[in-house]
């Protein structure tokens, strides 16, 4: 098939989306994805560059030109298979990768401002395969007769488990919550990542023979040393960065003030948006203030809107440029009417009868860059202002949960409390490997998956030379 165009570069094929005024009334997925013709048309824009610069931007090295070529030819299941050689969760990554900073940023056509919609295509191929009901199971090596324990069922744990199962290991995942998926299950909302998609990917793992034990908190229900005694040959820690940070300003324990983790867990994992059909309650604010500027803040703000808020303010202490959220989510949040207040930060929460009633804020300006390279916000004197609020969601980041780490002698941590591991995931404790947010701090789904994959290879190497 010849590539489209005679020097003229067509724009990206837009994917269907629910209209903003409709979608804020439901929790259904916002982006509807491509139809077959759209997917082929978008694939046809790809130049099949010899050096495939796009691949440099993908942390797991998906063979982008090859899968797109198969899509041009209409072989969507073949494309899905191609992607899965490197990325075991394509339906998820196609939806949530920050493509504008990864694969699409390196696409030759990005220079013209029209990079190939690689994420959309990836999603299409994966959805096509799933909907066809004929999901090809990856090949599995002969059993090596060794058991591996994976702690945590987020993208790091799932990928590590899948890869080890393919290598012939017997893998058990231990998950603290009652549902597997990690942030994919409890954090990222249904309207961005339908839970059915996550469940289907997890089913695929189960078909590979991975056993998932929910309701097990490693560290209290069982310790890592006990897992070794029970006959596991190696342990992978993929427990994420799940400890919520608070602002530590006056009034933060007033009723109506949530950590983003709590707010999103209630809504996504416990389905409180369906209360009282589901038992878990949630406070539905009329005037909601969200503090933070990442994906978590966007998800919280847009969730609050869907729960019926009239006004949702998002306070971010730097400018739009520094916001770490995916570009698409910021765009969607704006369309939906989230009110952004850049260069502002809360100083105090006010309350009436024990309930939050408002947030006292102050404006900031940007000073010298800090260690992360972003310019540090400085408080502007005399710029105080206040916002009315009956619900506040604090989404200023997370840290490492010490529960498991405290219960694991011999496991070294870094200054910030994350697990210390080399680039292959080897920790200071023999037979124990780690990857994902628990070593890097909050990052991305695809990086967590990449870490899970590297650790799987390292575990295989470690066990074969043992």
């Amino acid at each position: 098939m010849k590539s489209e165009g005679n020097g003229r570069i067509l724009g990206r094929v837009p994917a269907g989306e629910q209209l903003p005024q409709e979608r804020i009334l439901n929790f259904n997925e916002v982006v509807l994805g491509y139809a077959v013709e759209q997917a082929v048309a978008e694939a046809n824009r790809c130049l099949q560059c010899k050096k495939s610069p796009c691949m440099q931007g993908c942390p797991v090295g998906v063979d982008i030109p090859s899968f797109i070529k198969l899509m041009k030819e209409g072989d969507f299941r073949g494309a899905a298979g191609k992607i899965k050689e490197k990325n075991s969760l394509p339906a998820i990554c196609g939806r949530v990768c920050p493509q504008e900073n990864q694969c699409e940023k390196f696409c030759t056509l990005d220079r013209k401002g029209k990079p190939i919609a690689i994420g959309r295509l990836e999603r299409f191929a994966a959805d096509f395969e799933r909907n066809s009901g004929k999901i090809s199971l990856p090949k599995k090596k002969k059993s090596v007769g060794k058991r591996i324990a994976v702690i945590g069922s987020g993208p790091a744990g799932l990928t590590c488990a899948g890869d080890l199962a393919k290598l012939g290991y017997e893998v058990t995942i231990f998950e603290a919550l009652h549902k597997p998926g990690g942030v994919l299950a409890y954090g990222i909302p249904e309207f961005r990542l339908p839970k059915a998609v996550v469940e289907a990917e997890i089913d695929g793992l189960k078909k590979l023979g991975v056993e998932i034990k929910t309701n097990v908190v490693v560290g209290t229900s069982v310790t890592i040393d006990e897992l070794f005694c029970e006959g596991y040959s190696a342990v992978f820690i993929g427990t994420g960065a799940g400890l919520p940070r608070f602002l530590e300003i006056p009034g933060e324990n007033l009723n109506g003030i949530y950590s983003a983790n709590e707010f999103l867990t209630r809504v996504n994992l416990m389905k409180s948006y369906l209360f009282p059909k589901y038992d878990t309650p949630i406070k539905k604010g009329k005037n909601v203030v969200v503090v933070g500027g990442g994906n978590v803040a966007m998800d919280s703000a847009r969730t609050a809107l869907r729960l019926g808020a009239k006004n949702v303010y998002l306070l971010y202490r730097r400018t739009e440029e520094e916001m770490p959220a995916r570009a698409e989510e910021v765009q969607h949040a704006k369309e939906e009417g989230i009110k952004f207040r850049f260069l502002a930060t809360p100083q105090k929460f006010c309350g009436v009868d024990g309930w939050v009633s408002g947030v006292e804020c102050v404006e900031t300006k940007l000073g010298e860059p800090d260690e992360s390279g972003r310019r540090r916000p400085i408080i502007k004197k005399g710029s105080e202002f206040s916002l009315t609020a009956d619900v506040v969601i604090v989404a200023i980041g997370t840290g490492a949960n010490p529960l498991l780490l405290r219960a694991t002698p011999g496991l070294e941590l870094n200054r910030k409390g994350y697990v210390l591991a080399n680039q292959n995931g080897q920790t200071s404790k023999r037979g124990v490997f780690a990857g994902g947010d628990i070593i890097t701090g909050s990052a991305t789904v695809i990086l967590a998956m990449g870490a899970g994959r590297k650790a799987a290879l390292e575990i295989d190497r470690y066990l074969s030379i043992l």
Partner: protein
Amino acid sequence: MFRILNKEVLAPSVIRLEIEVPDIERKAKAGQFVILRIDESGERIPLTISGFNEERGSISLVFQEVGKTTRQLASLSSEDCIADIVGPLGRPSEIENFGTVACVAGGVGAAVILPVAQALKKAGNKIITILGARNKELLILEDELCSISDEFFVTTDDGSKGHCGVCTDVLNELIAGGQGINRVVAIGPAIMMKFVCKTTEPHKIKTVVSLNSIMVDGTGMCGSCRVTVGGETKFCCVDGPEFDGHLVDFDELMNRQKIYLEEENLALKSYETRDVKRTECRCKAQKEEGER
């Protein structure tokens, strides 16, 4: 799925369930709790482990019917199943030989204090138990607690049994009477724990309380359970549930316990008006749901 082995009604709307969870039974220590979810649409609620049975690989939970979830839990019977139980959670009680320990229990607090009192007794302490309830019908676990106590007092608000009044009356008398109490463990409604702490504070008797803040995950992930202790924010599920009562901000705790009052009433109402209450086991139905 976790099987209920036995169900007992201890007092009006106070139930004891024995549940088969060998993995938890093996690990749990006095003072720890579990979080359970009855079924697919259920909420996660914390309940303290009140007893252990090594042979049967079971734990017992004692709870009071206060709202939708506890009401539904009370409607289950032996051989029914519960979808999820996770634990043991929280830090175990500090068990040492302190000398003389006064265990003050209010309402279902008796069930929570029982394993702690048993462990303290085993560690060689002299145990003085003060068991309080609104009336004699609501007194639970009297025999169990009495059997491990060196001194045992009962108080009821209406005087239908034991001392007429509240448990702090007896505690006050004991302290005034020169009983050398080295430590107090107080477990019950927040307001009762607050007053016990007020009673012991002037005498500088270390008082341990077990806080019941609203929880979701129970692993330190959500911050729903945050409480102020000694001016610092702590997570009840991982830093507690037991804390030094003299440092606890009880007013904040009581305020936070009220967050979902409105929703809780709504949930209870909608449960009560449901045509068919789910009294039979839902294992099968859930399995089918799961497969769909």
